[in-house]
């Protein structure tokens, strides 16, 4: 026996899953991206240069600025982070503002810059931001451009990640609960209970989800606050999304019931609750985690679509969906194509979740080659 074999022998199942997952390069990359994204969401106030309320009306629709490291305009090599400022020009007839990069104007940047004060986690008061203009009272910077109303898009994407990234988790957690309970009941008891639940699942799956979501979301009173709306939307999303998970759970239960080791454990005198929770459930938790991971992107996409259509979250709540709502108008889009950037964030996150989910699914059963 060679060394790796020996290590394998005493490895726990979770370790085997991890070893297999590690070999899946895309999944590992996805995991890193997600880790970074959730850190950003956690420290959103710190990472974003501005708060969600910070509006620069006179800079509405300003284009993205390129961060430069070295300034050679003066002939020499002048190191230091900076962006160029704008000169704006208002068309007399159309009142349209056009921006031009002003190569003369340098807005120096710095890390841990002083800015608007905020409370991190509602606890620590500080006014430091990860990056921002060195001079807090000088001209503003827009790394990814400004929205039509003069908000900093970069800051808004960072703040919006809180809603967009968590709604998937909360939604999947809720549908997980419904799915596992119903799927478990269905799979374990079988018989008419199973038949009834199966019919219910088939029914939910045959309905086009978005119209139903829209219908339910439209019924949410318009005067509800952002938090209330957030949770209602989450519940609406999970009311329909639990079916897949329930099917996975049921299928696993059905297969496991036939396994000899389950019979053997029952013959060991193990009672039903312990049989289910201590012996059967651990056999497919890894599968469940994989399925849940794969269900998150659908949730994120659904929230984005709902908000985009104006039926999900509404301003002043900031999510990637509400940010994209501004891009609906083609005229606006033509003038400010960077408004599509929140969409890029959605794609990256959804891709990462898919990669991680695929990796987990492949690794979920470490005993299959």
């Amino acid at each position, binding site marked *: 026996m060679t060394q790796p074999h020996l290590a394998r022998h005493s490895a726990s199942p979770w370790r085997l899953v991890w070893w297999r997952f590690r070999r899946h390069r895309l999944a590992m990359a996805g995991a890193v991206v997600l880790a970074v994204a959730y850190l950003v969401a956690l420290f959103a106030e710190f990472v974003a240069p501005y708060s969600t309320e910070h509006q620069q009306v006179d800079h509405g629709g300003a284009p993205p600025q390129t961060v430069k490291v070295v300034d050679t305009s003066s002939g020499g090599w002048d190191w230091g982070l900076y962006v160029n400022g704008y000169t704006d020009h208002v068309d007399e007839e159309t009142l349209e503002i056009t921006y031009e990069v002003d190569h003369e104007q340098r807005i120096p940047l710095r890390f841990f810059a002083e800015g608007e004060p905020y409370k991190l986690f509602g606890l620590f008061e500080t006014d430091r931001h990860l990056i921002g203009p060195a001079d807090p009272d000088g001209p503003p910077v827009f790394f990814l451009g400004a929205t039509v109303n003069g908000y900093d898009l970069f800051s808004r994407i960072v703040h919006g990640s809180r809603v967009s990234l968590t709604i998937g988790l909360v939604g999947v957690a809720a549908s997980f609960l419904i799915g596992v309970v119903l799927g478990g009941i269905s799979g374990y008891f079988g018989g008419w209970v199973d038949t009834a639940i199966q019919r219910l699942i088939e029914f939910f799956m*045959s309905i086009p989800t978005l119209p139903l979501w829209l219908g339910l979301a439209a019924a949410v009173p318009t005067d509800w606050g952002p938090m209330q709306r957030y949770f209602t939307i989450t519940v609406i999303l999970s009311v329909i999304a639990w079916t897949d998970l329930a099917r996975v759970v049921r299928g696993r239960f059905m297969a496991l019931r036939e396994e000899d080791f389950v019979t053997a454990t029952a013959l060991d005198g193990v009672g039903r609750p312990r049989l289910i929770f201590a012996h059967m459930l651990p056999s497919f938790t890894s599968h469940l985690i994989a399925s849940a991971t794969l269900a998150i992107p659908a949730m994120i996409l659904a929230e984005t679509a709902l908000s985009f259509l104006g039926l999900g979250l509404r301003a002043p709540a900031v999510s990637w969906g509400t940010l994209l709502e501004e891009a609906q108008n083609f005229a606006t889009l033509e003038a400010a194509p960077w408004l*599509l950037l929140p969409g890029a964030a*959605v*794609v990256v996150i959804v891709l990462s979740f898919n990669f991680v989910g695929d990796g987990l699914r492949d690794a979920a059963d470490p005993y299959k080659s």
Partner: protein
Amino acid sequence: MGKYVLRRIAYMAPTMFAISVVSFVIIQLPPGDYLTQLASGLRERGEPADQAYLDALSARYGLDEPMPVQYLQWMKGILFHGDFGMSFEWNQPVSALLADTLPFTIALTLGTLLFTWIVAFPIGIYSAVRQYSLGDYVATTVGFIGLAIPNFLLALVLVYLSRMLFGGSFVGVFSSEYAHAPWSVGRFLDLLSHLWIPVIVLGTAGTAGLIRILRANLLDELRRPYVVAGRARGMGERRLLIRYPLRIALNPFVSTIGWVLPMLVSGEVVVGTVLALPTTGPLLLGALRSQDMYLAGSIILIVSVLTVIGTLLSDLVLAWLDPRVRHQYR
């Protein structure tokens, strides 16, 4: 087989019933009742609310009756008179509005389904047969991205790009000069030039999903003993592939109707809105925004029922194609 068809149709009845109930509940969900909204709607537009008219409507839809009775009234109207109720927003019968938009919606959906199949079929096979080839990696990557892009984003990007590259408007189904013109070759070509964006946008996610499923299924089937056995009796690779594993891997194509259809219908709501298509999607959205609930509920009902019928058809085709399914239900 006849028995199987009957049984499948019998299974459908409770689903249909549940859908109608859900649709009705959605109609009833918003606060306030339909008539007060109608009256306020009319008032807003400066039209005097004709009390007699309102009373007639109230009697017609049994709005004073308890909920179950209202539901029965509504269903009776639909089943026996094709009457889905009134749209107060448009001040038209819902059935008339549906007649305008539904055919185009169905045509668009079926066209997209066809597009999905035509694209996914060869790519899926190639991807499985040449596993880990460059083409497979490209297809897999494109598939992943296709699944990750929200379709409204794709619509926005495509419209933005086509405007930048070709100029002109690709929104709506007709250019302005053909919008109200009678049918002609030019008008038809104009329609096609507008349709490619919605078809691609709607079809991308489904195509990507289908490629992944076909690839996985075919890879599974390619490892089965009967493939080795077929090879061992001297079958050529191409013939073997087409006759044996592909026949089974075809099943997901047929069952796509079951899950791609709901997906297309969902996507159509968003894409129709972004691209300003005369489909049920924008109509539904408008109805929901203005709480025009009979219209909204009816659209949800019709679209869901059509999906259920599509699923039924796919199940029947599946049974016709696959002897295992067929013989399971003798």
